[in-house]
């Protein structure tokens, strides 16, 4: 009999709780606001974080898993992902174009290698001007990076050897300088030197050339920017399985001329891991800050519930006189708190998720199921934790004193 009795009552208690919250809609909404904002920001931040992680993984994976990066100086990626920085070696590179050639000729596991330089310069077309990164690279770059051009062609080995002043521009550069005009065969100035545009890079691309870069033959770059050393060497292993062997051989070859501290060999996996890890840490940190606001929201709920309990002392006394047991009173007020927090959680999820979806045209963002579930569960639990105290206060009131309260 007891369980049937309690089940009947439970629905009633829920509707009584909802009635009370409805009676003061403004107050209920304002109380929910803390949780709404907290949950919305957590969902938004986590969605953007997840989205970015996924986007970058996709980008890097597209390039090819047999890619090896050789950078100057000692770079400990683990340190980088924990917040440390690359050593000063990056600025004083000892790598040369010849090193790239040596890698190919002396290793049976390395199919191709492309040395690269980078510099900043002003790019001009007619009256349009922008500052951009100018990457000097060899003709085999698109092949190594597995990234074909969107328009036109890349320069050839002949162009490279002959020092021809041709350039391949990034899609953003094309948009800024040429607007909707066809950039092919037009002349641009890089610094003080005139170049002919022969190609436009694909939007996707990473590791040296991307949308807002300009790519020119490395011989020309080294000449006009007065560089003797290269900042990076891209090397391509024969296939993904031979990457480790390729790395081992590359190390041996380079150590012939350089010391251990002069270079670092990285795989795409290393970079992916570091980026993922940094993003992951960032997401968690930002999420944590947003979570703190959830606690503040919970405190707000507890505060309002305490006020509500005091305001309704007389009503509580009456209900007790008419037959409400302490547990029934506890349940009613606890449910009110839970409705406020879980309701706020749902609204927050909708706002945060909606915001993430809206943002997805600008920043990659992905609303993950587990994030939503976690956010809802936490908001529910917040209701319980912060609602228990006021609810117990109400349930413990003596009916006589409550009835006497004015």
């Amino acid at each position, binding site marked *: 009999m007891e369980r049937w009795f309690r089940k009947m009552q439970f629905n009633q208690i829920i509707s009584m709780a909802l*009635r009370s919250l409805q009676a003061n809609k403004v107050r209920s909404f304002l109380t929910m606001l803390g949780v709404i904002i907290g949950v919305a920001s957590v969902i938004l931040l986590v969605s953007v974080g997840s989205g970015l992680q996924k986007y970058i993984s996709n980008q890097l994976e597209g390039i090819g898993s047999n890619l090896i990066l050789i950078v100057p100086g000692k770079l400990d990626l683990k340190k980088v992902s924990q917040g440390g920085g690359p050593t000063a070696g990056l600025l004083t590179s000892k790598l040369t174009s010849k090193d790239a050639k040596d890698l190919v000729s002396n290793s049976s596991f390395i199919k191709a290698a492309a040395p690269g330089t980078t510099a900043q310069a002003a790019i001009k077309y007619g009256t349009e001007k922008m500052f951009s990164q100018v990457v000097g690279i060899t003709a085999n770059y698109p092949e190594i990076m597995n990234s074909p051009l969107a328009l036109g062609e890349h320069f050839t080995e002949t162009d490279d050897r002959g020092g021809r002043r041709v350039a391949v521009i990034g899609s953003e550069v094309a948009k800024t300088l040429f607007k909707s005009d066809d950039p092919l065969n037009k002349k641009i100035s890089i610094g003080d030197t005139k170049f002919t545009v022969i190609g436009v890079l694909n939007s996707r691309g990473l590791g040296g050339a991307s949308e807002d870069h300009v790519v020119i033959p490395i011989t020309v770059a080294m000449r006009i920017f007065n560089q003797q050393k290269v900042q990076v060497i891209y090397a391509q292993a024969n296939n993904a399985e031979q990457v480790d062997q390729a790395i081992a051989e590359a190390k041996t070859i380079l150590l012939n001329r350089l010391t251990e501290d002069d270079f670092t060999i990285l795989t795409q996996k290393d970079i992916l891991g570091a980026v993922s890890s940094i993003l992951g840490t960032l997401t968690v940190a930002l999420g944590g800050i947003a979570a703190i606001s959830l606690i503040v929201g919970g405190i707000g709920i507890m505060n309002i519930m305490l006020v509500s309990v005091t305001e309704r002392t007389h009503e509580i006394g009456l209900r007790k006189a008419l*037959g409400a047991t302490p547990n029934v009173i506890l349940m009613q007020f606890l449910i009110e708190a839970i409705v406020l927090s879980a309701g706020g959680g749902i609204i927050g999820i909708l706002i945060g998720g909606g915001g993430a979806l809206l943002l997805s045209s600008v920043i990659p963002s992905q609303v993950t199921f587990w994030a939503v579930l976690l956010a809802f569960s936490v908001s529910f639990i917040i209701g319980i934790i912060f609602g228990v105290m006021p609810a117990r206060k109400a349930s413990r009131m003596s009916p006589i004193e409550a009835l006497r309260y004015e």
Partner: protein
Amino acid sequence: MILSLRNVTKTYCLEGAEVRALDGVSIDIKEGEFVAIVGPSGSGKSTLMHIVGLLDTPTSGKVLLEDKEVTRMSEATLAKLRNEHIGFVFQQFNLLPRVSALENVELPLIYKGVGAGERRQRATKMLEMVGLGERLNNWPNQLSGGQQQRVAIARALILNPLIILADEPTGNLDSKTGKDILDLLHKLNKEGHTVVLVTHDSDVAVSAKRQIKIRDGKVVS
């Protein structure tokens, strides 16, 4: 015997001093009686009413409801007993202000666990019985004092309690309406309900068949 108090004493600790609100009170209330508990302010009649209404437990002594001892029962059990056996009528009506007369009368039924359909039916009947069939959906602030008290009486009767316990039921009403309410209580008594009326007003008390006079925590007659 519907309700008995045997040698009931109730003491409070007020600012370090012991206050004896009730001192060795014994009373018996039979089924179908109309009893008035009379006493001046501070006599202990409120405390006595609380104990009769199972809202409070004595410091010593026994309380028996239908000859079964309820003295040391938990608040949860007492709440259940109140729900089923005691019908309260208060001086200030004590209706929930933001729900209708009908929903007010339904409240004890909710705590008893009665389903929505049956609740509506029973509450409607009860309100019709006290002459408020036209006012089912009005809020208390849309009703006169007398009407509100009648809603309270309907609420008190809804679970067919053993005792109707009325605490100064006419205190907030003008003399004519007060008399109407009193007449209603007498009518209910004639129909078989046991009524315990608590008052300081001897004019009201005199209409009861029996008076229990209380002074300084002791029954004096």
